[in-house]
């Protein structure tokens, strides 16, 4: 009994701080990957929606990123990047893979949003004299966004959790930090619970805010 008490005392307030810092790194890499990936994804989605050739070729490429497990993409990219002369640290490599992965998902969400608006609605906008970009900005964007916003939130929350896989490259985000502490303290349940709570704390505000926004839109 005494020995296990020593293990338990291995987890201190400092370690909580360590986890908190790691949570910020999870937030940071997720934030960057989701914002940059969404921006790229919206343009890819637009490309998918305008031409069949794009939809076929680009769609096939994006499907690769959607169907190969993220962990394989991370390991492959991190190890092959130096061969083509890219010297990337785990954060950079992880961010790039996570961003591409996000954009592949967002592209299809965005295409869905554009298609949800429909050709007749867009013809109505054009018939009022709006040019292509005004139609996109004032009609397609607001209507399409409302249609696929829940799907986008799902992608964003998914990417936030999937960012845990970047730990395999050695980037000390929330999961990696938890693994380090578990090795030292042997307190897996406690530490994983705390890490889980952190993930929840990061995700919940997003889904809460998203629900509020959807409620406001549906009025």
């Amino acid at each position: 009994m005494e020995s296990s008490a020593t293990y338990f005392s291995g987890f201190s307030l400092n370690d909580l701080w360590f986890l908190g810092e790691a949570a910020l790194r999870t937030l940071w890499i997720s934030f960057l990957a989701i914002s940059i990936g969404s921006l790229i994804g919206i343009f890819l989605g637009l490309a998918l929606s305008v031409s069949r050739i794009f939809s076929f070729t680009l769609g096939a490429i994006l499907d690769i990123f959607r169907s190969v497990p993220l962990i394989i993409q991370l390991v492959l990219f991190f190890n092959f990047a130096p061969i083509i002369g890219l010297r990337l640290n785990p954060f950079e490599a992880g961010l790039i893979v996570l961003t591409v992965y996000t954009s592949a998902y967002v592209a299809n969400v965005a295409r869905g949003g554009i298609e949800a608006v429909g050709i007749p609605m867009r013809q109505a906008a054009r018939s009022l004299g709006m040019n292509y970009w005004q139609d996109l900005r004032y009609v397609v964007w607001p209507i399409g966004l409302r249609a696929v916003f829940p799907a986008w939130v799902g992608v964003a929350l998914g990417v936030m959790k999937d960012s845990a896989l970047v730990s395999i490259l050695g980037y000390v985000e929330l999961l990696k930090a938890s693994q380090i502490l578990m090795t030292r303290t042997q307190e897996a349940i406690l530490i994983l619970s705390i890490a889980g709570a952190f993930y929840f704390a990061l995700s919940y505000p997003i889904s809460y805010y998203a629900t509020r926004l959807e409620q406001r839109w549906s009025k």
Partner: protein
Amino acid sequence: MISISNLYKSYGSLEVLKGIDLNIPKGEVLSVIGSSGSGKSTLLYCINGLEPIQKGQIIVDDIDVHAKETNLNSVRQNMGMVFQQWNSFPHLTVLENVALAPKIVSKLSKSDALEVAEKQLLHVGLGDKLSQYPSALSGGQQQRLAIARALAMEPKCMLFDEATSALDPELVGEVLDTIRLLADEGMTMICVTHEMGFAREVSDRVAFFHEGKIEEINQAEKLFGSPKSKYLQKFLSKVKT
């Protein structure tokens, strides 16, 4: 005002319009009737430049709509179009729906755009719905909203593409009344319609489309009273029943 000569339009190998010649002077109300697939709606889409054409010419207000150097966006500002599906913008209030194009296309100030929008909404009888969202409106009201939205651009002519076809029967009247109001005000209009009574009463002339051609065109009373083409006779006997 609108002058169409030798117009051909195909979708792939399907030829929809086969040599249309049509002149619509300022202030005329022309109704276009005919069975489904006869090319009536396609004609309006070509006039508005929403569909490219294969051959011929469409001149609206001295501008060749399909010429390469033509800025379609500015041409369309002179032509209001109302569709079978009203396509109101669901994220904007009734007032904002109408004010959007004046604001971003005509570059009016926000207050001017709202003023124009309110005026047109009063015009079509939606003055009490300004701050509602389209989802709270009936089909007939949404179609009148679409008419107000087109009118807010102060077009020189209006194109109606089966504006009442998607409406419940009891809502058709209010939309036809609004179109009638515009006709009385002297608006140049082309109405593709299935409402024969309306076409007869409101139009100066009526064109009967058959298989991509104008089979017969005449003053409304003459066309309905003494149809010459046997296709038109057949068509009228079917719709009258």
